[in-house]
């Protein structure tokens, strides 16, 4: 018998504080696997957000620096322009990247900053208790839309990936999900491709990952994963939204 799966080296042995079934845990692990496989630990800097993943540095065994809410793209820009040899990625939630951080995200993409954004979309503000986020679905009940999101008052779920694809500096944008074995595998591939786009110096890359928040969705872990597959993907279709990297999918 040989061991075919164990914890990636770039992931510390600390137990996750995330809720059972939370997508953060999976995404952290996938990023750590990619860092291991691409040998990036020595030159990677991660910029985590305020939010449930503010403790990301407890889990990733890499250099990390917290940012103010929403400003990760600007912080990453400062790091990358100063030290272009560093591989820098931001790790942001939907409120972070698509509400308070919209300007910084769009302009970093527009300037083609050679950074990678991991955009964890769970349709709520998780850490603060489940308030409406820019990506909350129409009709979805949250603590600040207790009667369900009314698009005539609260606007429509925002499609950041599609919007960012218009930025000419953005070279690779894909939307995936961590809601099934197949989708988890695709997410890992997408993260790899996004990092590769940065290594190749091509421009801004982003992976939007639909992620479960069982606690704030008031569902069991399995139900929340199924809700992504059945409901979220209707509003946020999975797939490559933009790829001008010219790389094949052979990797």
């Amino acid at each position, binding site marked *: 018998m040989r061991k075919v*799966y164990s914890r990636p080296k770039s992931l510390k042995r600390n137990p996750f504080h995330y809720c059972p079934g939370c997508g953060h845990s*999976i995404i952290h692990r996938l990023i750590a696997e990619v860092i291991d496989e691409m040998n990036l630990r020595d030159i990677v800097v991660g910029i985590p957000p305020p939010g449930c993943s503010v403790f990301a540095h407890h889990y990733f065994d890499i250099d990390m620096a917290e940012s103010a809410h929403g400003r990760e793209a600007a912080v990453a820009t400062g790091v990358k322009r100063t030290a272009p040899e560093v591989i820098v990625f931001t790790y942001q939630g939907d409120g972070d990247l698509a509400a308070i951080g919209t300007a910084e995200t769009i302009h970093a993409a527009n300037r083609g900053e050679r950074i990678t954004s991991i955009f964890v979309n769970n349709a709520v503000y998780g850490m603060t208790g489940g308030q409406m986020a820019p990506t909350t679905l129409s009709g979805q009940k949250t603590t600040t839309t207790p009667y369900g999101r009314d698009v005539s008052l609260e606007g429509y779920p925002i499609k950041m990936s599609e919007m960012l694809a218009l930025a000419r500096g953005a070279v690779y944008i894909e939307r995936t999900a961590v809601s099934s074995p197949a989708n988890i595998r695709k997410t890992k591939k997408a993260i790899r491709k996004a990092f590769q786009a940065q290594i190749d110096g091509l421009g801004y890359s982003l992976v939007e990952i639909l992620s479960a928040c069982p606690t704030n969705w008031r569902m069991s872990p399995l139900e929340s994963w199924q809700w992504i597959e059945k409901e979220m993907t209707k509003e946020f279709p999975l797939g490559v939204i933009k790829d001008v990297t010219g790389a094949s999918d052979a990797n």
Partner: protein
Amino acid sequence: MSSGKTDTSIKGYIEVDQELCKGCQICISFCPKDAISASDKLNVSGYLTVFLNDSGQCTGCAICALVCPEVAIEVYRG
């Protein structure tokens, strides 16, 4: 674990770290062989965990490890 063909019925097995497992049971729902079951024992954190049952059906496909949010599963394949 012995190598060789003496024990061909066991193709794979998993070890679930009982203190990392949070009992989300996603591994159980995705296991193609029903080789994982829910435990009735609480771990130190108060979660009802899962364990490899004695059906002997595990093939070491590692889907459980792929979906486990807690990185609680190590997979072995013969």
